């Protein structure tokens, strides 16, 4: 059985496989190609870097999109 680690995703705890990268997380969420942007520990991660960023235990990940606003 593979070890897992816990991150905070959009403010809520979530278990992810150890060794997973950001691109894999986005895909798992069904958001590949969607109009979203991602922050890791309060720093923007550009999409071309998503596969290079390996998730670490305790990471705070924000995945945001655009909604109606004024």
């Amino acid at each position, binding site marked *: 059985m593979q070890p897992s680690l816990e991150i905070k995703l959009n403010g809520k705890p979530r278990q992810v496989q150890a060794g997973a990268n950001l691109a894999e997380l986005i895909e798992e969420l069904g958001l590949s190609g969607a109009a979203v*942007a*991602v922050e890791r520990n309060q720093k923007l991660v550009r*999409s071309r870097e998503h596969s290079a960023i390996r998730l670490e235990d305790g990471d705070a990940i924000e*995945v945001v*999109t*655009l909604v*109606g*606003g*004024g």
Partner: protein
Amino acid sequence: MSDPRSVPAHESDATLDVGGVSLRSRLLVGTGKYASFEETRDALEISGSDCVTVAVRRVNLDASQGPSLLEFIDRSRYHILPNTAGCFDASSAIRTAELARAILDTPLVKLEVLGDPRTLLPDPIGTLEATRELVAQGFQVLVYCSDDPRLCARLEELGAASVMPAGSPIGSGQGILNPNALRIILELVKLPVIVDAGVGTASDVAIAMELGAAGVLLNTAIAGAREPLRMAAAMRDACKAGRQAFLAGRIPRKLYANASSPLEGTIAQSGGAGP
């Protein structure tokens, strides 16, 4: 003039150039609070605007992903202006602006750094800080702010692309509470001044434009009207009316009368008294 109907010159007007984009309409509209994305799309279209604001929010991971707002906004037609609404400090606002830029690949941002969730009024310190940082990062920063004229002047010094003083608090529908402040801002600041927040109805837009504002941004006044699409049409026309009236040069105010019909040449007054 042979055919006034075909003389666009009387109603033509330079575009509103702000933040590197050139807008044909001086009405900027938000996309919040509509009943549906279809209504949003239709209201934008009827409003005649070519610049619409959006907010940045966490993806809702608990729900299956439905259609996205962006599918309803034709980017060949509208400039999208992401905002930092909901941020209560400079740092969150800067992060939000960066996230929006990553999605939209636009340098435009409508900066909001709010002071408290009750009044949603802008915090001057956080707003100044975030403006400085975002300008340094190459953003075109359109800054939501109070109608304090010297604050607007400071924002101009920091390199803002536009100052957007509130006519009255967000969503209050009170219109332009202090036209005098707006007049002074327009004297002090060379940037485009776009009145943001507070519009309640069409005449509020006309008043802002008549004072010389470069544009008006609104959302709730359309989305919250009983008939949003009809109100979108009203706002479109009011914006044009106010702009034209500003350019046309209104008559001065007087205590009283100035006859529109000639006073001479009336028939002999019955009583012989006459004027």
